């Protein structure tokens, strides 16, 4: 049996691992399944052939699939490490952890299908399944605010994905209009999309961008994101921000890989405008907020904006976009899990109520500090290199207005974030508190994320770099 099929195993294991009968050992089982998944993803990524067609052509192991399969499964392992630690620290969370195991394993099986899919409609069905599995994860103790956040998430996701589905239908109409046999298999599409896109196909790609843009938190349909990331438990937020975000990104990359074959500038202007508007909204929101979870959520909108601009400008920026997207998955997972730890101890999300973290919670203080520097695109992190490549391509393409706006917004975000976060880390503690000592096991998942970030900025292992380059080339990158 092809090992790729084993990536679907979490869905089969979900009822067993998440059963209440085994809730005492549930976190261990969850961690074990996640570790096996991550190991399997690494094996598939570095041993699978070039662009194998699997399951009648519905799945593929092309470089895009392999790169993002490793990313999401490794991040899920880290998140499960956090869940395992939380369960050890607070046994009252057994039931919540069982519930998390049930839904998150279904979510991950569907997420694996999204990245491995070679068929547009299959990836759509799988992405919808991740949405259906994630919506219950947002609920916290049946709180009204979390119910509302869950509903808003579900509604926006459904509408966004409905628009993407409409986009696929328009793409099919585009083929019919050209007298071609419509297909949704990506490798077959790549062979027949050399003709200049007609109106249907242009509209289809634009609708797909709008639809998946909603899942990425891009303007104009971004309002679900801050509320959802704020209200969801940290493990669910990390899952949405680091895993589902990349699943939606893969879907968008697939469409751009396929339909930009004949016209490299297809939806360039749309991507640039949506990216800049998203960055502007994010900057204003970062300046205004006094809630550290929301601040990270608004920064996620900023990241989506940078990615959209990078994809819009293409060429040399493409490699940078991939580096930036992968780096930000680690940054967001690390920061949201750290935010969860801070919220657990201080009982508030208000930045003004948290100070002197570096003394109170040394590990969390360090993670927040390093994560914030990575978030802001400082060296030596992969996000710095990625952002630099996008900026240099903007200059090379003589897009000076966008370059100036980009730099201004990034600078304003930097000042606003530093003004809010740095007092949390180094400020004078407002009340004398003694916390239980943080263990190394608690810090391990977040530390591993930060190590991955530094590695991507300092020394990219050749085997991983090959994947990055192959994906960039498939997007028309240099």
């Amino acid at each position: 049996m092809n090992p790729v099929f084993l990536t679907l195993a979490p869905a089969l294991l979900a009822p067993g691992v998440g059963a209440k009968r085994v809730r005492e050992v549930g976190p261990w089982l969850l961690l074990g399944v996640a570790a096996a998944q991550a190991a399997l993803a690494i094996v598939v990524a570095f041993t699978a052939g070039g662009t194998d067609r699997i399951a009648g052509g519905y799945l593929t192991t092309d470089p895009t699939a392999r790169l993002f399969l490793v990313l999401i499964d490794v991040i899920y392992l880290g998140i499960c490490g956090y869940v395992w630690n939380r369960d050890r620290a607070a046994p009252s969370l057994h039931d919540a952890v069982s519930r998390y195991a049930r839904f998150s394993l279904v979510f991950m099986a569907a997420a694996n299908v999204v990245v491995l899919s070679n068929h547009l409609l299959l990836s759509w069905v799988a992405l919808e399944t991740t949405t259906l599995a994630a919506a219950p994860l947002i609920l916290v103790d049946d709180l009204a605010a979390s119910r509302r956040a869950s509903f808003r998430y579900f509604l926006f996701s459904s509408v966004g994905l409905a628009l993407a589905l409409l986009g696929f239908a328009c793409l099919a109409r585009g083929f019919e209009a050209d007298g071609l046999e419509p297909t949704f298999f990506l490798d077959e599409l790549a062979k027949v999309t050399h003709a200049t896109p007609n109106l249907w196909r242009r509209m289809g790609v634009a609708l797909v961008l709008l639809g998946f843009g909603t899942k990425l938190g891009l303007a104009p349909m971004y309002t679900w994101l801050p509320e959802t990331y704020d209200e969801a438990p940290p493990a669910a937020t990390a899952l949405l921000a680091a895993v589902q975000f990349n699943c939606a990104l893969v879907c968008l990359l697939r469409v751009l890989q396929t339909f930009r074959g004949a016209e490299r500038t297809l939806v360039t202007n749309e991507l640039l405008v949506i990216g800049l508007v998203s960055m502007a909204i994010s900057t204003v929101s970062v300046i205004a907020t006094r809630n550290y979870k929301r601040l990270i959520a608004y920064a996620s909108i900023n990241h989506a904006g940078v990615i959209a601009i990078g994809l819009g400008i293409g060429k040399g920026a493409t490699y940078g976009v991939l580096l930036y997207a992968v780096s930000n998955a680690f940054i967001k997972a690390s920061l949201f899990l750290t935010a969860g730890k801070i919220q657990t101890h201080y009982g508030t999300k208000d930045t003004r109520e948290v100070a002197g973290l570096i003394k109170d919670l040394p590990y969390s203080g360090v993670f927040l500090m390093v994560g914030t520097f990575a978030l802001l695109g400082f060296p030596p992190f992969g996000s710095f290199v990625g952002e630099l490549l996008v900026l240099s391509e903007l200059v090379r393409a003589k897009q000076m207005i966008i370059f100036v706006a980009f730099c201004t917004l990034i600078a304003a975000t930097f000042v606003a974030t530093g003004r809010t976060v740095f007092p949390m880390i180094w400020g004078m503690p407002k009340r004398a508190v003694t916390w239980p000592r943080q263990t190394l096991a608690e810090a391990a998942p977040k530390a591993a994320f930060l190590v991955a970030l530094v590695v991507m900025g300092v020394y990219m292992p050749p085997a991983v770099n090959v994947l990055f380059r192959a994906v960039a080339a498939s997007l028309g990158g240099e």
Partner: protein
Amino acid sequence: MTGILIAFLVVLVVPLFVGTWRTSFLGLSLQGFLLSWIAFRHGAHLSAELVVEVVDLVVLRAVAAPLLLRRVLTHQNAPPNNQVLAPNLFSWAMALALALVAFLAADQLVPAEGDAQLLVAVSTAALLLGLLVLATRGGHLSQMIGALRIENAIALFELGSVKHPSLGIRIGQVLVTAGSIAAYRWYLQHLAPDESLPALTDSERAPT
């Protein structure tokens, strides 16, 4: 097919101007039945594909979605009024303008006059009116109705396509539709009517 499409347009527009949730659900149900009529107007042979289409269009869209949501509201003794569109001249003018834009867009997309052009026009109008409901109404019931209208619009648009996805994918799509309807029912049961207010701002929620 022209008559069915005109009927679809009527059940699309009328509930916007009659401000009760019963009318909205009746409209959704009729949309489902009209979609089925369009899909099966040439007759059909018994096959797995036919069963899946019947489940999608008749069972889920025409019956289950409106009925399940209606039962929740009946059980909650919800007041009969629910404006899916703000009852003012501006909103009504906007709705009519969007319907007009849909027909003009269809002229561009399908130059040849006929059923194909009318189908694109009606489905585009359904989509735009659904988006208008979502954009202008904050209540969760109105937003659910808006989302379901959009899903029906896309189903109508897909009926005009020559190529249909494989059976496995269609089953996946139908399961997603069923899951979405179940989720909407759960939210309608568990979101209190006053939770349709806009989200709290940072200053309202912090510090706690």
